[in-house]
């Protein structure tokens, strides 16, 4: 049935899915730029300055899009989820307000100096501005994931007249799933950025251009990935165990596991049939699911039939999105390993097929972040606050389906246009290459010697 509830859910999914692509990139990129600025400040090697000046315009474009699409997010709670706002704000309002006060102001306040202030402030102050912008993005990640995690594993509150009332702020902020989600997500953001950096370097290396800059980028990226990718496997496993403890129905959906059983197989493929409460076309490895989730082949894992149908999440979406995320993780592992071997043999610059693979791999992190996000959010259903408040009881009661259909259409059109254009322009900035190479000014009336002030042009 297409009603205001379903359309509001689609609208939220749309605006947050596109928005999350930007922090997935800018959290890591802000830190990378801060590192480059720091490396230049302390070593004075010009290559670091050239790298920072290359990435700053790209950061400016993506950060501007992140701000513009981010302002939309808090207002969604009011426009489409007013019951949710009324019932949860005593707990979640302060967490989101702390995000604004600690993170958004910090980012925005120092961004101007980072992008436009290189010649206006001393070098240490410019470096400091870069560090503050990076710190802002991380603080933002902290608070918004704390709020999200509380919706997944609510603790520290009581319920009075259906409204959530805070009891213990430490328990609320550091709720059981938060540490795992914070580390897992932040590492995913850094990995995403590292693959973009490596992919962009590959684009120029394949053309034999900017070799010094691009090898520096790839080595920095691979160095980070060598640390983070294996660590992410471990953290992902811990996150899964945490989910099994607090949200077993989500795990059952992710594994399309209908029956409570020991020696649960790990399904490589299946077609979950929710009406028949079983899977079609199952291909699995016996007992591996129990081994991974229970660290014991005889561990008993709860199946979906343990819950009433109305309390089960959708099955097919988390099942496939989870497999997509893990599959990408495996590919990332392989690419990182290959890159490290080539680096050790000193063959990075000439490894044409590796470099060719690295270009499409720039998109892998984004797909994995989206897939992971879909898994955790769809797996939380039918609850918006897990076990306590149903999504269908959170929607704004005054909305008609036609209202939400109109707003959804507006967001789809606007975001398609803006994100399409933004992607195109960032690709153009990547192709433009480094300041030392050919540097055509983009366009504009030739007669005007204008050097307009934008991050995209000025930061060069």
């Amino acid at each position: 049935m297409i009603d205001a509830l379903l359309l509001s859910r689609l609208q939220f999914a749309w605006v947050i899915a596109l928005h999350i692509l930007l922090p997935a990139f800018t959290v890591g990129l802000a830190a990378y730029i801060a590192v480059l600025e720091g490396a230049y400040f302390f070593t004075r090697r010009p290559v670091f300055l050239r790298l920072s000046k290359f990435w700053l315009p790209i950061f400016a474009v993506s950060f501007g899009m992140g701000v513009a699409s981010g302002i939309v997010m808090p207002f969604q709670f009011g426009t489409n989820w007013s019951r949710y706002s009324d019932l949860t704000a005593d707990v979640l309002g302060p967490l989101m307000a702390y995000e604004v006060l600690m993170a958004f102001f910090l980012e925005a306040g120092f961004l101007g100096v980072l992008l436009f202030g290189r010649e206006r402030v001393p070098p240490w102050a410019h470096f400091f501005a870069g560090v503050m912008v990076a710190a802002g993005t991380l603080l933002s990640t902290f608070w918004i994931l704390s709020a999200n995690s509380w919706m997944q594993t609510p603790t520290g509150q009581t319920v009075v007249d259906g409204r959530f009332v805070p009891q213990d702020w430490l328990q609320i902020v550091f709720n059981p799933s938060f540490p795992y989600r914070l580390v897992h997500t932040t590492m995913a953001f850094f990995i995403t950025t590292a693959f973009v950096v490596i992919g962009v370097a590959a684009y120029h290396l394949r053309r034999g251009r900017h070799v010094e800059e691009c090898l520096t980028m790839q080595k920095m990226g691979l160095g980070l990935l060598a640390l983070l990718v294996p660590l992410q496997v471990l953290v992902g496993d811990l996150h899964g165990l945490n989910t099994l403890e607090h949200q077993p129905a989500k795990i059952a959906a992710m594994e399309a596991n209908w029956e409570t059983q020991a020696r649960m197989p790990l399904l490589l493929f299946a077609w979950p049939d929710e009406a028949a409460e079983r899977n079609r076309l199952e291909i699995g490895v016996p007992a591996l699911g129990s081994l991974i989730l229970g660290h014991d082949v005889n561990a008993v894992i709860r199946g979906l039939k343990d819950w009433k149908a109305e309390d089960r999440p959708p099955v097919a979406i988390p099942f496939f999105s989870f497999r997509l995320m893990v599959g990408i993780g495996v590919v990332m592992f392989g690419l990182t390993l290959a890159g490290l071997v080539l680096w050790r043999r000193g063959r990075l610059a000439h490894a044409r097929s590796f470099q060719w693979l690295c270009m499409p791999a720039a998109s892998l992190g984004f797909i994995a972040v989206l897939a992971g996000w879909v898994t955790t959010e769809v797996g939380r259903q039918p609850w918006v606050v897990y076990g306590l408040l149903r999504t269908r009881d959170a929607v704004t009661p005054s909305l008609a389906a036609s209202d939400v259909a109109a707003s959804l259409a507006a967001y789809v059109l606007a975001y398609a246009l803006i994100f399409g254009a933004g992607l195109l322009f960032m690709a153009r900035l990547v192709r433009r290459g480094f300041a030392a190479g050919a540097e055509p000014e983009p366009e504009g009336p030739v007669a005007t010697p204008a050097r307009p002030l934008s991050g995209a042009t000025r930061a060069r």
Partner: protein
Amino acid sequence: MALDLVPLWAAILAFGVFMYVLLDGFDLGIGILFPFAPDAAGRDAMMNSVAPIWDFNETWLVLGGVGLLAAFPLAFAIVIPAVYFPILFMLIGLIFRGVAFEFRHLSRRRHYWDRSFFVGSLLATFSQGIVLGTFVQGIPVAGRDYAGGSLGWLTPFALLTGAGLVAGYGLLGACWLVLKTEGALQAWARGRARMFTIGVAAFVAMVSLWTPLIQPQIRGRWFGGEHPLWLWPVPLITFALFVLLWRSLARGRDATPFLAALGIFAMAYLGVGISIFPMVVPYTFDLWQAAATPRSHAFLMIGTLFLLPIILGYTVWSYWVFRGKVKAGSGYG
């Protein structure tokens, strides 16, 4: 709970929204004036004058929205659904104008993004004015929910406040340019500022006369037996500021017009506050009825008292770094 933090939260939120209105007011005003600039170099200078600060200015809007959610959640849950479409238009407008800062330099079709900067700024401003008008008019409530329809905001009064805010932000933008530019562009901005001064004065007069007619609470506040004498300075100071604005523009001052325009906004804002107080969902719930629990107020207050001065500190620093006139041809540095 020993301490009632509701008045302090109301003050902080009022301050945050006011900062937004002032700061994004002038850079949205730049967008409204943008297509009428004398030449391309002038448009670049206009952009340059706000490029390093616009997203910082817009952060105050996020603080206003999230602050309302955190401090007065019932108001957030009723008022925002009442202005579903104006909020949508505002957000879409802000998106199209926000990305234009970077996109116009990267596109082969700059005029598209110049247009998007103008239309987005205009749409966002007009929508914010409609939100203000809807709020002042009062919002129908049933239980803890908005009780009206999705077009409840579409009234002549709200359209008037929408147009009024366009004139108001236009005035701020023009005065900002008088402050930040020189030469032909400044002279042009001075002319626009005078035009908008007349417009804003007309809108302020119309809204001031109209509101007491539609709302008994407002009529009682300003013309009833409460304390009308005590309130007289508000319209008198507003009038004096209009005179100051007009004369400082005529005498070619750089900074005074901007300060006078800020003063006019402060007085108009104060006037709305006096009219509405203590309502936060006019005219059903007051601040105390819509407030979050004292525990939430206290938890957030601890950090806010610490963080707000720091934020104001680096705001001043950032504006200081980019002080002085922008040059049309060269940008900064």
